[in-house]
């Protein structure tokens, strides 16, 4: 017998995790940004803001310009017009959790509710007058706590794997977008004193600075790309995320008796091969942006295929019994 899980429940678990991880990512980038700009000139800061928006706003969103860091923080943290603002992401994650309260354990629910209440109580004025770092870093900690509770408490059934799927598809996509923007801006030139802060910022934005230091001794763009893209051990690397996506999909394929020949699994296999057997020199030669585009396309296709295979499939195709 397959494990039966309502499609609606699977969908909600997936989005709950995806939105929460998205909020986490946005908070980390803002934290990094606000720690870098005080040491930069206004031209460099303005360039950063443009790149950040390109990496963090919804892909289909119009290009927006903001002239101050305060406006940037507002747009990415509190704006209700921005689907990817922290407030919107956390609210969406909570709403998804609320619809399936009986499916997640009460500790998980309380944690996500707590994050929601904290974010909702915050305001731009308060944030800007106080210490933004405490807010953004605090949010990262709370999301880690959520993931920790899930890890410690949840049975490794389909529900768990849909949470993993959401988490890692989001991370793979987010890291790929960030890498794309940063390397397009200055990837061709070697690191120098002025760009040092930026490269370190990228590593911090992927929660990878300390891990990087254990493997490499110098800050070097090619190594950074190698590390963030192809390192299989770093939790925020694309390779790591893709491994996790494939594992989750395989587990779901087994639990549902659909087998690994479903489209989502095939796509995940292809993406996995892309990351597992690529070499950084070749990637850089053909163009990092081309490689990243393929990664992002496959991620988007997996997302769609998951939806079509497990949630919104045509009825005629799936009369099981």
């Amino acid at each position, binding site marked *: 017998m*397959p*494990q*039966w*899980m*309502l*499609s*609606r429940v*699977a969908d909600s678990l997936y989005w709950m995790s995806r939105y929460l991880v998205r909020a986490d990512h946005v908070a980390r980038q803002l934290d990094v940004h606000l720690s870098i700009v005080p040491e930069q000139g206004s031209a460099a800061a303005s360039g950063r803001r443009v790149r950040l928006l390109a990496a963090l706003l919804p892909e289909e969103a119009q290009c927006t310009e903001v002239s101050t860091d305060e406006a940037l923080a507002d747009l990415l943290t509190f704006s209700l017009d921005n689907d990817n603002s922290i407030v919107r992401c956390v609210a969406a994650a909570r709403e998804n959790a*609320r*619809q399936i*309260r*009986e499916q997640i354990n*009460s500790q998980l629910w309380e944690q996500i509710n707590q994050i929601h209440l904290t974010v909702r109580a915050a305001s731009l004025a308060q944030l800007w007058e106080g210490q933004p770092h405490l807010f953004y870093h605090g949010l990262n900690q709370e999301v880690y706590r959520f993931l920790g509770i899930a890890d410690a408490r949840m049975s490794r059934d*389909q529900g768990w794997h849909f949470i993993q799927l959401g988490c890692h598809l989001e991370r793979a996509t987010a890291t790929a977008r960030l890498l794309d923007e940063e390397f397009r801006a200055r990837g061709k030139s070697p690191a120098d004193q002025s760009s040092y802060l930026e490269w370190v910022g990228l590593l911090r934005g992927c929660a990878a600075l300390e891990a990087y230091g254990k493997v490499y001794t110098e800050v070097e763009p090619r190594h950074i790309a190698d590390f963030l893209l192809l390192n299989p051990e770093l939790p925020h690397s694309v390779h790591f995320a893709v491994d996790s996506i494939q594992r989750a999909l395989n587990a*779901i394929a087994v*639990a*549902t*008796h*659909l087998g690994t020949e479903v489209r989502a699994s095939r796509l995940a296999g292809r993406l996995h091969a892309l990351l597992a057997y690529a070499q950084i020199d070749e990637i850089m030669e053909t163009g990092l942006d081309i490689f990243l585009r393929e990664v992002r396309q496959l991620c988007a296709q997996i997302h769609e295929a998951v939806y079509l295979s*497990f*949630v919104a*499939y045509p*009825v005629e195709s*799936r*009369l*099981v*019994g």
Partner: protein
Amino acid sequence: MTPDSSAAPPASSSSLYEAYRVEGAYDEMLAPNGEPRPQYQQLYQTLLELTPEELQRRQQAADLSFLHQGITFTVYSDTQGTERIFPYDLLPRIIASQEWDAIERGLIQRITALNLFLHDIYHGARILADKVVPFDLVYSSKHYRREMRGVDVPHGTYIAVVGTDLIRLPDGRFAVLEDNLRVPSGASYMLTNRQVMKRVFPRLFTHYGVRPLEYYTQALLTALCDLAPGSRADANIVLLSPGVYNSAYFEHTFLARLMGIPLVEGRDLLVHDNAVYMRTTAGLRRVDVIYRRIDDDFVDPLVFRKDSTLGVPGLFNAYRSGTVTLANAIGTGVADDKAIYAYVPQIIAYYLKEDPLLPNVETYQCADGAERAYVLEHLQDLVVKAVGESGGYGMLIGPHSTAEARAEFVRLIQANPRNYIAQPTINLSCCPCFLDGRVEARHVDLRPYILYGRQASILPGGLTRVALRRGSLVVNSSQGGGSKDTWVLTA
């Protein structure tokens, strides 16, 4: 009434029962001589031994427990549109063993007869032909579903879950106030009240010897399983909820979790080839029994309300062809219509050839000219109810009403007499409640739950609802009522 001076409590606690007074109603705790009744003796004494502060602490512990578990309900008309905790009273309501046995026999008799009545009116309608119940009363009931004529339901069971509201008359007899045969709620409060009580008064509870009711969810699951088409052992049973915005959503999640069955919404289900399926990640899974917590009107937009988005198109046809069971069946509301209620004693006599064990409350039919005239003249003394409503909505309590409200009801009754009945205002019995550091008397009713798979069975106890406002007779949670644990003693 105050306790007899020979049982004088210690001076420090003497004020505990000072405010406890019962007038014109049956006193659940004290006998007419002022002594505690046997089943209340121990509780009465224990309370005297505890300081008010200690009692207060236990009440707070109980309240906190409800808050943390998120045990709430939603109030519809409230503009705050809010979730509230269902107020919980600390002191148990205690029912002696032989008292309960009489209630149990009476309820089984009543529910058995009502079930036969439902089968009859949707088949041969003998009872109407024999003029025991007026046929126009049945056919004009807004809960009568002509679509159900000739439809056979498994084991002839129409009402798998019933919550019948009992009250205690001033002479101490229990009487039936109304039957809830559609989608009765409150069982989750009964279960959580018990859970909290065992934590708050563990020793008292143990000494008393209380009949357990934790097996409710298991018994409910068994009853639902019994009703599966073709008695499939591996039946897929689901709970159909209107969703997160429904006032009883907490209860839906609570019961689904404890029964280990999927909580589905209409959008999770679909009908294909006259069979019902739920949409899962592994494909479509056949559904055998639907414990539905939505009203008839919303079940299937193709047959009932067209604008319903809560139901499942095609569900009724699948149901009628017997591929899926709905619990409760469609159309059961006709038997808890408050105008039909008046005929339940005749219904019992007709099908079972027995006298009713539990009396009804005297009821005037506004559809009847003479009775209507009496009602309109005595509005001040009567309780008027809309026949198809529940939850304390659409009700006038004469003695507590304003002239305006009465004028409004005169208009309503004259416009649609069939829609109203009236009953004398009955002083519900009073129970001790812990309020503001003292024990006070408040009016209560009792809703036991009856489960009906192959046969009827009853949980020992039920939900005792309390009118927490002093003097109030309205116990509904939407109207300022609370609840307390109900102990049925083993011996």
